[in-house]
């Protein structure tokens, strides 16, 4: 069994030199880099197997259709869902959530209805609900977070008791790294019979999903945060929920029979996949899943735990640094957001870039959360399976350069 330390050599981009320094990529919550097997899968499919799917009777088209459907089965297997028809391919998490908002919630939403979100949602699990709520005069409620960046479960229960139409909650915060107690949340939602949409964009490949994924009414994630390509994502739904959805987008591949005035729809999942899907990307997503499975999610989790614990310890030694989110590493994925006193996060990130260190600065698409934290923006270090303790050290040490410029 290979050690995770060997993983770095699978990622060609990590050999890059930026401004004369080796690239230290610590923006993995935004997107992850791609290992050679994923790059190979993309190239091989386009070189040898490319054809449109579910349309041709010729060999190449049959092969492409098979490869696409095998990718669907690989996704289902990875997250512990038995029926692969429950896996709908989309462009990404954002499209998955918008699909549920437009196609499932919108026709069911009435004036005065409530939708429950949390203060730590990414804009992609907030704005789609805001759009339909405004149109239907529904109300949004936000579950509060504690000062240590965890959900207030009492508040959640109070809001669920009002029988909202939906609870939309992230599995992991993209800013705080907080791992939310999904099993408890799903139990509560079940007690009050509230359907749940889980944003698993930051959870997939980082923590095991199979204990609770099957129980979610809807669950979404993106391929590119799982070492796969951009342009492919997943909506995994309870079959009956998906089956009661009317199409959102119309086009090829989603029909049963088309007439001049009206048409009938294909079965799930094709009904929700209008047009030519990202076929090569689906095939490469399967390669990414197999790559992750080769290490195993628990092992990746353990590695990220070590990295994030180290980052928390190192940052705690810096008197002018404020770290947001849970203080215990065990409650987080490999994400740490912080503020360096007196220096704007953009300026911190800019100086770090001088030595090849890529970190994110800004509100990370969570303006409600930043308002709650009382800051406009933060600097975020986010880790992946290929990062090392030395890279965390160089990022924290580089803060000295920042102070030098801004003293």
């Amino acid at each position, binding site marked *: 069994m290979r050690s995770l330390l060997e993983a770095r050599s699978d990622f060609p981009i990590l050999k890059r030199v930026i401004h004369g320094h080796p690239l230290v990529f610590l923006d993995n919550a935004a997107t992850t880099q791609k290992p050679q097997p994923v790059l190979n899968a993309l190239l091989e499919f386009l070189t040898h197997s490319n054809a449109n799917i579910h349309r041709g009777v010729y060999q190449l088209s049959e092969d492409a259709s098979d490869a696409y459907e095998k990718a669907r089965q690989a996704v289902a297997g990875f997250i512990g869902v038995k029926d692969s028809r429950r896996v709908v391919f989309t462009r990404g998490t954002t499209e998955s959530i918008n699909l549920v908002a437009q196609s499932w919630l919108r026709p069911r939403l009435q004036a005065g209805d409530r939708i429950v979100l949390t203060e730590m949602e990414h804009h992609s699990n907030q704005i789609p609900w805001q759009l339909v709520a405004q149109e239907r005069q529904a109300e949004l409620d936000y579950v509060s977070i504690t000062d240590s960046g965890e959900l207030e479960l009492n508040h959640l229960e109070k809001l669920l008791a009002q029988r909202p139409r939906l609870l939309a909650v992230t599995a992991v915060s993209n800013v705080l790294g907080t791992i939310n107690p999904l099993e408890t949340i799903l139990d509560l939602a079940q007690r009050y019979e509230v359907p749940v949409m889980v944003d698993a964009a930051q959870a997939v490949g980082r923590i095991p999903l199979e204990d609770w994924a099957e129980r979610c009414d809807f669950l979404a994630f993106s391929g590119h945060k799982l070492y796969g390509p951009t342009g492919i994502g997943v909506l995994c739904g309870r079959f009956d929920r998906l089956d009661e959805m009317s199409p959102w987008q119309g086009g090829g591949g989603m029909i049963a029979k088309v007439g001049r005035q009206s048409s009938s729809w294909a079965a799930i999942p094709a009904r929700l996949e209008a047009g030519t899907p990202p076929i090569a990307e689906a095939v490469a997503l399967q390669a990414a899943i197999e790559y992750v499975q080769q290490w195993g999610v628990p092992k990746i989790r353990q590695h990220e735990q070590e990295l994030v614990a180290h980052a928390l310890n190192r940052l705690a030694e810096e008197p002018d640094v404020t770290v947001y989110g849970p203080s215990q590493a065990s409650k987080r994925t490999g994400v740490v957001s912080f503020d360096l006193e007196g220096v704007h996060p*953009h*300026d911190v990130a*800019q100086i770090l870039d001088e030595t090849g260190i890529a970190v994110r*600065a800004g*509100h990370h698409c969570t303006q409600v959360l930043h308002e709650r934290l009382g800051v*406009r923006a933060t600097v975020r270090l986010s880790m992946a399976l290929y990062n090392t303790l030395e890279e965390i050290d160089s990022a924290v040490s580089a803060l000295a350069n920042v102070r030098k410029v801004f003293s």
Partner: protein
Amino acid sequence: MSESLYRDILKDHMHHQRFAGRLEPADLKAVVHNPLCGDELELTIVLGGDPSEGAQRPIQEARNQVRACSICVASASLMGESIQGLSLEEANNLGTTFREAMETGELPDSPPEFLPPLMAIRKHKSRIRCAALAWNALEECTQQVTNPKSEG
């Protein structure tokens, strides 16, 4: 590289922002945001002259209230220095000069004094928006005079 980005003249404006604060009452006011980071800048202007002069009215005083990064602060500070006493239209034309220089990377013949130190930002495309914030606020203020209906 940041060495040139955070060079002396910019650093000076970062640490000692000119024309900071807000005017109350003001003839013109615009609040603009950088959607990338949520940064906020409020520009308030007191005009001289007569309302009939429209955009030809001179800027008697302008102040920037900035909650943003150092590039945004420095750019607002440089703008404050440059537009004092100019007519609204002349001032806004400087904004056009700024945007063109950022787009093309070329300085005009006899460039306004504020522009050369900002050229280093061009290497960092994402930061152009930071530097543009103050000029965007000025454009919004100008439009309030030239096209009052669109501003409700």
